[in-house]
């Protein structure tokens, strides 16, 4: 019997910020973070705001550095430890192994919505016609009106930008998908669409790690909940 390896294994990770402009003040964020995410499941990070949930996602994405520990992502060419990987290795993971739906769309000036959504699929080498078809299907599913597709999303409402962001995050086929409150500014119909899209990713074998403040959404998508308060930095605990 072969044991199944996780797509993501986080081991004993610690993170703090050192604020040099404030006399080297050290702000601890999390410590002893450890959990795994397997293919086909959605692990939800739980805990109050400020507990470090977003920071954990950012460390997995390589956006935040790590003080200690290991963040092992299983790619097609072996396991990469994001905590110590070279920038090129992280970029390669982002291109083909992991995706990230951030809370806010970082808008590139003048780029049309359809192109914003297609970009990650094209970067993976998907045929442009196929990428376009996927982008159109996702935007339709997420109720982004067709008349907006040729416009840059800079002037869209918060909810519209968020849906463009979700489409962009879901278009490519990745092994590991990170979701930072993807349903935060959505109405019930769009929340339901996102839940269905997440279920489809799970069924396709994607490993998902997410933050959902909406309890209803969380209960519907979560395979397991990892309580981040367990990773609190206990400076004053007994």
């Amino acid at each position, binding site marked *: 019997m072969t044991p199944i390896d996780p797509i993501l294994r986080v081991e004993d990770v610690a993170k703090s910020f050192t*604020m*040099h402009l404030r006399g080297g003040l050290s702000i601890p964020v999390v410590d002893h973070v450890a959990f795994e995410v397997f293919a086909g499941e959605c692990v939800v990070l739980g805990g109050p705001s400020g507990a470090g949930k977003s920071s954990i996602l950012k460390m997995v994405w390589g956006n935040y550095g790590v003080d200690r520990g290991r963040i092992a992502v299983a790619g097609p060419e072996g396991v990469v430890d994001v905590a110590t990987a070279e920038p090129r290795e992280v*970029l390669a993971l982002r291109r083909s192994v992991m995706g990230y739906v951030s809370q806010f769309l970082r808008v590139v000036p003048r780029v049309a919505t359809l192109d914003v959504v297609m970009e990650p699929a094209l970067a993976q080498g998907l045929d442009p016609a196929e990428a376009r078809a996927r982008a159109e299907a996702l935007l339709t599913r997420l109720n982004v009106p067709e008349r907006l597709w040729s416009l840059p999303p800079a002037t869209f409402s918060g909810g519209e930008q968020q849906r463009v962001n979700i489409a962009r995050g879901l278009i490519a086929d990745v092994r590991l998908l990170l979701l930072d409150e993807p349903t935060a500014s959505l109405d019930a119909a769009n929340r339901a669409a996102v839940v269905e899209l997440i279920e489809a990713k799970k069924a396709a074998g994607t490993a998902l790690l997410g933050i959902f403040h909406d309890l209803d959404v969380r209960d519907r998508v979560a395979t397991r909940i990892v309580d981040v308060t367990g990773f609190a930095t206990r400076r004053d605990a007994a």
Partner: protein
Amino acid sequence: MTASLLEAQGLTKWYGDRLGCRDVSFDIREGEVLAIVGESGSGKSTLLSLLSGQPAPTSGSVAYRMRDGSIRDLVSLSEAERRFLFRTDWGFVHQDAAKGLRMGVSAGGNVGERLMAVGARHYGDIRAAAEDWLERVEIDVSRIDEKPTAYSGGMRQRLQIARNLVTAPRLVFMDEPTGGLDVSVQARLLDLLRRLVADMGLAVIVVTHDLAVARLLSDRIMVMRQGRVIEAGLTDRVLDDPREAYTQLLVSSILQP
């Protein structure tokens, strides 16, 4: 395929007892964009000039993979070889377009001249290539016979880019490419640069003090201060989780990079 196009090792430059830059090492491959950031006097411009082999560094080396696959130290190139690289394999986009353009020659001539320098002779082909490149940089082809003096700042900068890219270089150096342009003009130029870099698989080394430009264009970033690289890494990691005091100061000094 994954070999370095250019690799700097321990690059150091002293001007008498004044330090230009010290012990800078990095490498770049085709398709990568590296930003060098820092305030004026940090050594960015010294480094950029050393990378093209002139002036010679006080110590250190710059290895470059030529089109035939051989690796050469740029310092050891003959003047003729270096000129050949400048004409064919490298682009250089200056902040001041007047430095990178010939202001007394038509726009079409500015683009065509670089092609002629690499051996193009057929007038019709050169004209067609110039028209094609003006279109790619979003300059109205009907203005091909005007001199750059009649162009706006943003158009001049786009013309400079066309002049540089027409010979299909592999490595492009950019020195504050959006400096001095209006914000809306900057956005258009950045979008254009992003697309061209991706389409042509260029290696780009861009020097800028503008962290927003670095964020939009580059994959990796090197932060320089007093001639040294004090922090380097993935662009979004360095900007969102800066480690060094000076990087934190740079990031905190701007509004939302």
